[in-house]
């Protein structure tokens, strides 16, 4: 079934057992993003040590795709530099825009390649990008405050 390409095991696993969920008390920047069409919400906190992303924490509600995506993203980007994170973000955005023609670069995206199947479902791409767009926003805000 085509649905199985959307609901990869790693996605449903992160949905049931989200990582880095629960907001840190301190943060360099905090952003709140919503998908107005469905009501999914993400609040994301970022902390930096120099150019290193030292901590990402989040809270939110939404579908398995949006929640698993932010969970996997926070796992992936914590400990990376802002430059590395920008490369990963670009790779993920390109994958989402691929309409099912790309399998994703596993070396860059690691577990996030599980979302390759999402790109075949136009209605769900914004779900998988919700957390990533929040990160992009938070990174800009945190840098501008340095």
């Amino acid at each position, binding site marked *: *079934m*085509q*649905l199985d390409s*959307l*609901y990869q*095991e790693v996605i*449903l*696993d992160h949905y*049931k057992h989200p990582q880095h969920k629960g907001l840190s008390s301190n943060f360099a920047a905090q952003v709140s993003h919503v998908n107005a*069409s*469905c*009501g*999914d919400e993400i609040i994301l906190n970022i902390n930096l040590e120099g150019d290193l992303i030292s901590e990402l924490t989040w809270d939110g*509600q*939404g*579908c*398995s*795709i949006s929640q698993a995506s932010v969970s996997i993203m926070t796992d992936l980007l914590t400990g990376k530099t802002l430059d590395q994170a920008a490369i990963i973000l670009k790779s993920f955005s390109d994958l989402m825009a691929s309409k099912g023609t790309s399998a994703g670069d596993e070396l860059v995206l690691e577990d996030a390649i599980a979302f390759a199947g999402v790109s075949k*479902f136009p209605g*769900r791409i914004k*779900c998988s990008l919700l957390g990533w767009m929040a990160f992009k926003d938070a990174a800009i805000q945190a840098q501008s405050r340095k």
Partner: protein
Amino acid sequence: MSFSPALIRQDFPIFERTVREGKKLVYLDSGATSQKPHSVIEAESGFYKFHNAAVHRGAHQLAEEATDAYENARLIVSKFLNAPGGSDEIIFTKNATESLNLLAYSMGNAEGTNRFALKAGDRIVVSEMEHHANLIPWQQLCARTGAELGWFSVTPEGRLDLSAIDSVITADTKVVALTHQSNVLGTIIPLEAIVARAHAVGAVVVLDACQSVPHMPVDVAALEIDFLSFSGHKTLGPTGIGVLWGRKNLLDELPPFLFGGSMIEYVTMTDATWAMTPAKFEAGVPNMAQAVGLGAALNYLSEIGMENVHSHEVALTAYLLEAMREIEGLKLVGPNDTHLRGGAISFMVQDIHPHDLGQYLDSQGVAVRTGHHCAWPLAKALNVPASTRASLYLYNDESDCDALVHAIVGAKKYFGRF
């Protein structure tokens, strides 16, 4: 002739196709937009093929025919709603959202002694179960004029709480704008006491009838309301056409909102006066082919009979509610019986997010809507951030309900693996 969804479906070409790898289309999203019968598609394309010209202008035969077709559609709408003042009370818009915005902006243009002029101390009343289309125009009109927004709250069962009607519709209330049938809950609003109280304080009653006009007989004269809006595309008609009905004397007093061609009486470089109702509210070349298509849609519904459409949907709603009761972990959002209730049925299933449930249903050919259904404040009031909605129409039957129930059970199994 008895009511037969199977025969009715033959009039709708879309049911000839399949979805998701050859599955039968189980269309349960008519609350968002309805499917279209051949007669509507042909009326719309027939206008373009044979009569296309700009209405109310042009010194030629095509312009005459186009004007006739367009004005005939207006007459069909006025009869369908039993408008006491006839077709002059029918204003064509883009959709119900535009109808409500037209009304709110026109009221905002009223000044001085005009009965619609609003100021600080005046009040507009809505309800917590409004679609955004019947909330935000009024909320923003209040912000522009200084008037206050009041609202009826919703009971946990999904009914309007009318227990404090006199303190909600106060003596200062100028407008009471309510949905006739909730697009989320299916709840049908009992209007009698509301209309009586509104009129007693001199307020006008605006009905958002998007979810009622397509599904049951709506007689504006009998309801004693003052304004009503609905969308063509939810009523078997084309997109791009909606209706605002208003009492003639009220429309005459209401200032226009959109300015331009067709809506004027006399124009100089510095001033203008307005055409009579309804032209006053229809600036520019209107959506002519779509109005003609809407006329065909209402004729199609009238031939079947709105009483028959409504009783079919009530029976089908009862059937689906009964079947849903058997699904463990399914929670309804809205009344659990068919008393004053239409066929919009929202629900949640265990901890499966509605988006994920909708995705699984889609994989089985079942088309539903998920999310907050453009009624975010209602979702917050009921503490249901998102739900799944199945909405029924005349072409649905018990097999569609069975397919939905079967797919919900399948989704529980699919997402229960982890």
